[in-house]
């Protein structure tokens, strides 16, 4: 496992006091993304700490979701999309020919903006991932995986009596937690969350944020968010994107209290965005 030998991305990170323990699980170097002729992301260098929550913030269209989707190669599904640069997961390039994209996505799970449970039962929703990857040898093992995943996602108490009911029948917040349970069930190392609370009311949002904080113990989490308060509440590190460029990255506390860049300061004080 790569540890502190990696050169951190920015000068601000270098100076940081916790730097000795900083242990990146994902390292992105010179990542650029093109949609056809149009370049959406410009030479992004970013380290994502292990078992930390990293928040990607920035105004709409700044490339934060695009960057997130590079990390599990979801951009591969868009035909005109081209990614250059190097992204490594625990030191291994994810674009390496011997990395299988299916395997990569089992290691880097994803939760989307809009809750998108399968139109199947709650149980089936969670069991689908482990089943396609052959993670459970028996029905009992599968039950175990499903129940633990639902438990970790804080949903078990609400749904344990209706596991056979459709997942689409749950409320929005429950659906999103079901999607998180579904992602956890595969046992990923990293979980990517693309504005997971944007379709939810404040109470459901609070529950998800609590959950993210708990999940940090076992998973590396990258979250895209529009809400700076949310970034401040849940993340340890924050990266600010603007017009496809990674402007500044560092400890969340530092970014929000003493931003180095003028653009970051303007954004977090609400002058644009």
């Amino acid at each position, binding site marked *: 496992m790569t540890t502190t030998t990696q050169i951190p991305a920015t000068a601000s990170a270098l100076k940081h006091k916790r730097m000795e323990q900083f242990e990146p699980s994902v390292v992105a170097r010179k990542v650029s993304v093109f949609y056809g002729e149009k370049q959406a992301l410009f030479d992004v260098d970013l380290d994502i700490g292990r078992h930390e929550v990293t928040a990607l913030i920035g105004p709409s269209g700044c490339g934060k979701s695009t960057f997130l989707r590079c990390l599990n190669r*979801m951009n591969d*599904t868009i*035909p005109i999309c081209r990614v250059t640069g190097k992204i490594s997961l625990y030191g291994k390039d994810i674009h390496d020919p011997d990395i299988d994209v*299916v395997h990569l*996505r089992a290691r880097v799970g994803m939760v989307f903006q809009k809750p*998108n449970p399968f139109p199947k039962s709650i149980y089936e929703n969670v069991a689908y991932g482990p089943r396609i990857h052959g993670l459970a040898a028996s029905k009992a093992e599968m039950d175990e995986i499903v129940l633990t995943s639902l438990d970790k996602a804080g949903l078990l108490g609400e749904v344990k009596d209706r596991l056979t009911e459709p997942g689409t029948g749950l409320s929005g917040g429950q659906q999103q937690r079901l999607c998180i349970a579904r992602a956890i069930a595969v046992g990923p190392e990293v979980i990517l969350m693309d504005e997971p609370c944007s379709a939810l009311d404040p109470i459901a949002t609070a529950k998800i944020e609590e959950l993210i904080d708990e999940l940090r113990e076992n998973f590396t989490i990258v979250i895209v968010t529009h809400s700076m308060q949310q970034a401040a509440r849940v993340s340890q590190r924050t990266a600010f994107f603007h017009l496809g460029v990674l402007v500044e990255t560092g400890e969340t506390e530092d970014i929000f209290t003493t931003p180095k860049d003028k653009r970051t300061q303007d954004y977090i004080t609400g002058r644009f965005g």
Partner: protein
Amino acid sequence: MSDLAIRNVGMTSAMDATTTNSQRVAAGLKGRYAAERRFKAYGVLAIAFALACLMLLMWTIVSHGYTAFVQTMVRLEITLYPQDIDPDGKRDRDVLSTADYRTPIRQAVADLFPDVQGRSDQRQLDALVSPGAVFLIRDMVMADPSIVGKRVSITIPVSDDLDQLNKGYINPNVAEADRKVSDKQIAWFQRLKDRGLIETNFNTILFTMGDSREPELAGLWGATVGSFFTLAVTIALAFPIAVMTATYLEEFAPKNRWTQLIEVNINNLAAVPSIVFGLLGLAVFLGFFGLPRSAPLVGGMVLALITLPTVIIASRAAFKSVPPSIREAALGLGASRLQTVTDHVLPLAMPGILTGAIIGMAHALGETAPLLMIGMVAFIVDIPGGLTDPATVLPVQVYLWSDSPERAFVERTSAAIMVLLVFLFAMNAVAVLLRRRFERRW
């Protein structure tokens, strides 16, 4: 300065206009609502016109055709003398099947009218009952040879002309030379009626027999079985090919010039006249591959070609209607593209695909022109027993009957149309039911 002045002028004129603007809106309101009412009225008129046309069509068909569902029968006491039918008394099947059943029928009719003398009159008397009655008696004897030598009471169809007379289609008041039945026949028929020997029964022959030159013996069963075999071939070929094509084009194929070209051509094929497909079938399936003529196999292959574009287009629309978030969810979990399609996208697209397939099949069921090209228009009496037997289909049967000169085929043509329409409505109903059932699951 001047810039500011101009802006001020604009402001004041706009403020002056506020009151007049409101008045203008008020003045225009009436006209706008009137236009809306007119537009609605046009819509209602259009629907009313369409409904009226449909009612007229249905009324014409039903009013012409409903009489075909009953058949005028005469009850005869027939004595099956062994010397006529089975002189050796061995009950040999070959002898029984070729025996003379005409004489007993003639005898039975003559017994009812002992006063009729003379060759010409007797011939007219014989023409009262259907010439096909001999086959009914033969089938009875073949089924139960023990009735030979006994006196049996059975009902047999009267001739098609008397049937039409009984149903009121022949006017007895016109000059005798201008109608198909003579004065004497009308009188005899009236005597039979008075003696209570004439019955009008449900026309089972129409639903159990194959085609015939005699209208009273012509049935739709042969064409129905032919339609069934043909459609079975069509669905067996068209459904899997169309679903695979749509799946590949929608879910796997790269979006480039080639796939665009294929897409345009599929849309074009949907617009090609069906008779062109018939000629293709004639040239390729019959001419080149030497497949049998008039066979449901070839008919089904041609109809499959015709329905393929329709089903492909419907299936692609069904795939497009599956939300992309479902694909993302599956891919994000590490499902392969095939797993994404088979586990999630295909099941969600299935109701749309099935609906498209059934609409395509309904279309194929009503198709006539291409089948004429490959010889399914032949006069075929036997019920087809397999995919390569000569057969015809329901719409072609309608076409054949409508072309026949006998008066009795007019009502039968309409009856055949009704049967065809019932099948079409049933198929469309199944499409609606399938859609409801699959979509309601979640």
